[in-house]
C-alpha cells in the first residue's frame, strides 16, 4: 500500500511510519499541514492518515480541499478529539474513517487495509486472474490452491496490478506504490521485481500473466491486452 501519514507529534508519526513500513507499506510522512497538503495534492495515495489539529493548515482544511478537487482518496482521521460531535463533524467533512487516539498500531493497519479494500476493484477481497488468486485482505497469493511466496515489494507490485487487472498500469505508478518519496526513481528495480514475479508465477504453473506494453506499462491478465 502507498500511504501518506500527516501527524505533527513526531514520536507518534515516526512510530506509525516505521510500523507501516515494516509491514511492507510505502509511506510518505508530513509533520505539518502545509507539507501534508503539498504531498497529498500531487501524489495519489491508497490511503491517507490525517491528524485534525496540525500546525499551519489543519486536517479538516486539507480534507476539504481534497474533496473539493474531486479526490476520493480514502482518508482515516487520527485525532485526539473524541467527542461524538467531533466524530460526526470529521466523518461528514469527508473522512472515510475516524479513529480517536490512542490506537493500537495493529488496529490502525487493519483499518487502513479495510479502507484500501473498499476502494479497490469493487471492494472485493479476492481477485482471480487465471489460476492466480490473490486475497487482498490476508495479503496472500496462491496458484491452483498452492501458496505463492512473495516478498513485500513483489506483493505490492502484484496487488497494484491485480486491482487494475486487465488494465495497463504505468511504470511510474508502480514505482509510487512500491517506493516512498525519499527514494530516487529507478526503473531497473521495478523490472527486477517483475522479472522475479514472472519466474515465480511460471514456476507455480500460472503461466504468463504479467504482460509488458512497451512505452505504456504493465498489465496483469490471462491474455495479453490487445
Amino acid at each position, binding site marked *: 500500500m502507498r500511504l501518506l501519514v500527516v501527524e*505533527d*507529534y*513526531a*514520536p*507518534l508519526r515516526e*512510530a*506509525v511510519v*516505521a*510500523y507501516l513500513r*515494516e509491514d511492507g507499506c510505502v509511506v510518505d510522512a508530513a509533520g*505539518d*499541514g*502545509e507539507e501534508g497538503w503539498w504531498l497529498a495534492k500531487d501524489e495519489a495515495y491508497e490511503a491517507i492518515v490525517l491528524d485534525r489539529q496540525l*500546525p*499551519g493548515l489543519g486536517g479538516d482544511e486539507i480534507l476539504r480541499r481534497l474533496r473539493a478537487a474531486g479526490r476520493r482518496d480514502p482518508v482515516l482521521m*487520527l485525532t*485526539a*478529539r*473524541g*467527542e461524538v460531535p467531533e466524530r460526526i463533524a470529521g466523518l461528514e467533512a469527508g473522512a472515510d474513517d475516524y479513529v*480517536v*487516539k*490512542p*490506537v*493500537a*498500531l*495493529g488496529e490502525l493497519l487493519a483499518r487502513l487495509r479495510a479502507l484500501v479494500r473498499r476502494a479497490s476493484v469493487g471492494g472485493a477481497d479476492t481477485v482471480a486472474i487465471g489460476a492466480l488468486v490473490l486475497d487482498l485482505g490476508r495479503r496472500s497469493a496462491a496458484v491452483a490452491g498452492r501458496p505463492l511466496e512473495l516478498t513485500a515489494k513483489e506483493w505490492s507490485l502484484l496487488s497494484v496490478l491485480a486491482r487494475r487487472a486487465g488494465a495497463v498500469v504505468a511504470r511510474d505508478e508502480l514505482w509510487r506504490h512500491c517506493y516512498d518519496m525519499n527514494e530516487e526513481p529507478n526503473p531497473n528495480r521495478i523490472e527486477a521485481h517483475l522479472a522475479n514475479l514472472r519466474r515465480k508465477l511460471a514456476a507455480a504453473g500460472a503461466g504468463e500473466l504479467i504482460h509488458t506494453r512497451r512505452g505504456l506499462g504493465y498489465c496483469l491478465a490471462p491474455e495479453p491486452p490487445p
Partner: protein
Amino acid sequence: MISIRRRLVLGTVLAVSASSALAGVAAFISVRAHLVAAADAKLRTDAAGLLALVRGCEGGVCWAGGRIPDAGGWVLVTDGSGRRLLTHPESAGALAGQPDGPVRLPDGGSGRMACAVGPAPAPAHGARVQCPVPALMVTLARPDTALRSTLATVAWALAGATAAATALAGLAAAALARAVLRPVAGIAGAIAGASPGDACIAVRPESVPRELRPVVERADAFLANARAQVERERRTAADIAHELRTPLAGLIATADLALARERSAADYRAAIERGRAIAGDTARLVERLLMLTRLEAGSETARREPIAGEAVLAACLADLAPVDAARLQRAGGPLADGVGDGDHLATVLRNLVGNAVAHAPPGSAIELHAEGSRLAISNQAPRL
C-alpha cells in the same frame, strides 16, 4: 431553633398580652380609685346628712323627731373628745378611733367609713339642754359589697378584654407571618430545587419584596458561579483528555512498534528511551494543565517576589539539548529584573522556547530578543 413563624406569633402574642394586661391594670386602678372616691364621697355626704339630724337634748344628744334614721349601715356619734353619744346599732361603738376609708365592720364584714364633723347641735324641740355638746362627729360605716362586686365585674371585663386582644393578636400574627414568609418560602423552595446547571433560581427578583431581592440576586450569582465552575471543569477535563491523548498515542505506538517483531537489545533500548522521553513530556504537560486549571479556578495565586529575569531565562535555556541550544541567537540586552512569580515565569519561558524548538524547521535559527522586561521569540515555525 425556633421557627420564624413561631417567633413572630409568640412575640406578637406576648407583646399584645403584656401591653393589654398593663393597660387593663392601669384601667382597673383608675376605675377602682374613681369608684372608691365616689363611694367615700357618698358616705361623707350621708354622714353630713346624719349630722344635721342630731339634736341636743337633756343628757346629751338625740335624733331629731326621736326617730333613728335608716343610714344603711353603722352610725356612731361622738363629741369632740371622742365620747360616744349615739350608736346605731349598738355595735357601732367598735368603729370609734378607726380612720376613714376601708374598715372592718362590727359584724366582721368589710366596708368603708366616713366621718362628718359639725358644731354643737341645735336643741331638740322643747328640750332644755343641760350639758351642751360643743362639737359633734358622725361616723358612718357601710358594707362595701356593692363596690367590691362592681370592681370584680370591671376586673373580669378587663381580663376578658386582655385575653381577647391576645387571642386576636395571635391570629393576626399567624396570618401576618404566613403572608410575610410566603415569599421567603418561595425563595427557599426555588433554591432547594435549583441544580448547578440552572442559570438562575425559579424566582424573578421583581416578584419578591424589595428586602428579599438581594437574596434572590445573590442566589442567582452563586448559581451562575456554580454553572461556570461546572463548565470550567468540563472544559478542563476535555482539554486534559485531548492534550494527553496524543502523547499517550505516541507511547502506545512506540511500544506497539517495539513489540511487532523480534528486535535487537539496542532497538528495544531505543524504544524504551523514546517512551521515557514521551512520558517526561507528558508529565510536564500534566503539570502545565494542572497549573492552568488552578489559576482558572483561582485556587492558585501567583507570588510577588523579586525576579532576576536573565537568570530565569538562562536556567530555561540550560535545559535544552545542546543541538537545540545551538540554534538560539540572542539579541538586544539581558532580560530585566522584575517582581512576580519566578516559577510561573520559568514555565512560560520553557513553553515558548520549547514550542519554537519543536515546531521550527530543523536547523533553522531561533532568535531571542530581550529589551528591558520584554522578550520576543522569533522563529520559522508555522502558525499554531
